[in-house]
């Protein structure tokens, strides 16, 4: 018998036997498909609080699972596995291993805020997605996503000089993510643009590479922002118990050291 809602079941949990006899009746090819039941035992009740401690995740507790977020989601329309409603459910239930199955796509939220618009409970799912991908990175489940690298490159420039210069951002981003700058489509785009531009403007554009745009008298703001950011960072580390994790890792390593010496 075919299983109709097959996409809801993980392929590895669907078992079909070639030849099967039950109670003396040969059911091969007809009643020979089974779904293996799955048992979740590793609840991590701390996840919800940890994600709520990160910026954007504060209102996750309000969710009543209506699914408006997933329904309105831009990314869900191009990738059905991208399911904010489900992830909020998993986080609130503490089903860490299930959440980790999707760890490599959660960062793909494009911040279009359609979910925020649709949500009847003001959960701000967009913020929850950002907090969740941030959590995954802080806990070491995923490397920094390209989006996070971009955010960092961008924010560093803003905090340092008060303004950004797009060319510099693009170059730093490709460098930090180890991609070549000469992407064929970027080259093509620049070609199409440059051909029509007058020489004077090309000169001005080139100049931006040497003269960084910056806000004057920015020093005070820069220092104040950095000080605040450092405090916040420490608070978040504490909420996620990251310092303890590092300490524990050190303790685990210690007893083995004499052995290594021998």
């Amino acid at each position, binding site marked *: 018998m075919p299983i109709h809602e097959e996409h809801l079941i993980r392929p590895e949990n669907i078992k079909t036997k070639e030849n099967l006899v039950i109670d003396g009746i040969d059911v091969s090819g007809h009643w020979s498909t089974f779904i293996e039941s799955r048992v979740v035992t590793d609840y991590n009740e701390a996840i919800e609080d940890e994600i709520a401690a990160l*910026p*954007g995740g504060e209102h996750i507790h309000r969710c009543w699972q209506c699914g408006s977020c997933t329904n309105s989601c*831009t*990314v869900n329309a*191009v*990738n059905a596995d991208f399911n904010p409603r489900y992830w909020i459910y998993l986080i609130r239930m503490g089903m860490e291993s299930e959440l980790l199955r999707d760890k490599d796509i959660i960062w*793909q939220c*494009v*911040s*279009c*805020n*359609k979910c*925020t*618009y649709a949500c009847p409970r003001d959960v*701000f799912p967009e913020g929850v997605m*950002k907090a969740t991908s*941030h959590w995954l990175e802080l806990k070491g489940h995923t490397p920094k*996503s*390209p*989006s*996070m*690298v*971009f*955010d*960092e490159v*961008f*924010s560093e420039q*803003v905090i340092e000089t*008060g*303004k*950004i*210069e*797009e060319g510099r951002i*693009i170059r730093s*981003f*490709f460098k930090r*993510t180890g991609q070549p700058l000469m992407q*064929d*489509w970027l080259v*093509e*785009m620049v070609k*199409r*643009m440059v051909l*029509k*531009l*007058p020489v004077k*403007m090309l000169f001005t554009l080139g100049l*931006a590479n040497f003269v960084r*745009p910056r*806000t*004057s008298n920015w020093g*005070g*703001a820069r*220092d*104040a*922002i950095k*000080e*605040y*950011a450092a405090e*916040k960072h420490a608070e978040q580390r504490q909420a996620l118990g990251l310092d303890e994790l590092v300490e524990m890792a050190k303790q685990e390593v210690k007893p083995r050291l004499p052995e290594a010496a021998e």
Partner: protein
Amino acid sequence: MAKTTVYQKVAYYPGCALEGTGHAYNRSTKEVGKALGLELDEVKNWNCCGAMEVKNIDPKIQTYLSSRVMSIAANEMGHDVVMAPCNGCYHNLKKAEYDLEKDEESKQVVDRISKKAGHKTYEAGQVETIHALDWIKGAIGEDGLRERVKNSLNGLKIANYYGCMYTRPRHIFPEKDQGPGSESTSQPHFMDDLLEAAGAENVDFPLKTACCGGAHTLSDSDTSTLLVLNILRAAEASGAEVIATECPTCHSGLEMHQVRAEKKYGYESNVKILYFTQLLGMALGVKPKQVGVHENVSDSMSLLKEKGIA
């Protein structure tokens, strides 16, 4: 706009993108202001509003960055209206305004950083932040615009694309969805109204507020290309010759991924991408070069000539 403010003279906050990829939007906005006799007073020594990136590092730093711009406009220049043509800047200033009105912690953080930075703390209500669309609509209106059109857009078929940040999330735009005369967050129409007054024909475009994937233009290019492809296809299916934009991120996103879709998926689209201020400028008799049509990647000159606009 039901408000009594007439926006004849406003503080102008161009933002970083308008000094880079959105250069054409900057000059066309200024040209439109000049042609309509409206004065733009650029915010002195402005800084980045935080765009879509800083909030992911810490939202309150973004609130501070946006508040500084408003503080300068209000306390150092004496303005009560800030006009931002970029959707991102507009959105962030609105968001900061909302947070500073409602959230005590945001207020404290902004106050603390502002004091250390050595300028007055911005207080909610000191300025009204408006988009370039609100500005033209409020100061001139469709009727006023119709009288001033020298070079009609001759029924050019336009898909009006507003993007995400202009209408979402709804709670930071308290003046929208207030009945007749106000902007709608589900079916925005200010750009449609203005371009129609300039002689264009607006097509029935279903993806006005769809997302172009602008936040991940570079970090997740494949998704962005798919999203832009949707927009381009829908515009062409609606019979549009031009997609009118009102955001530098959307604009460069559409242009970049139009090229990328061609390179990567072999999908060639003919629809041209222009800022609404470029279209309005030309309708008001400004030369295409002056509104920066040649700075766009998407080459629309032949279409504009064919239509008798350029």
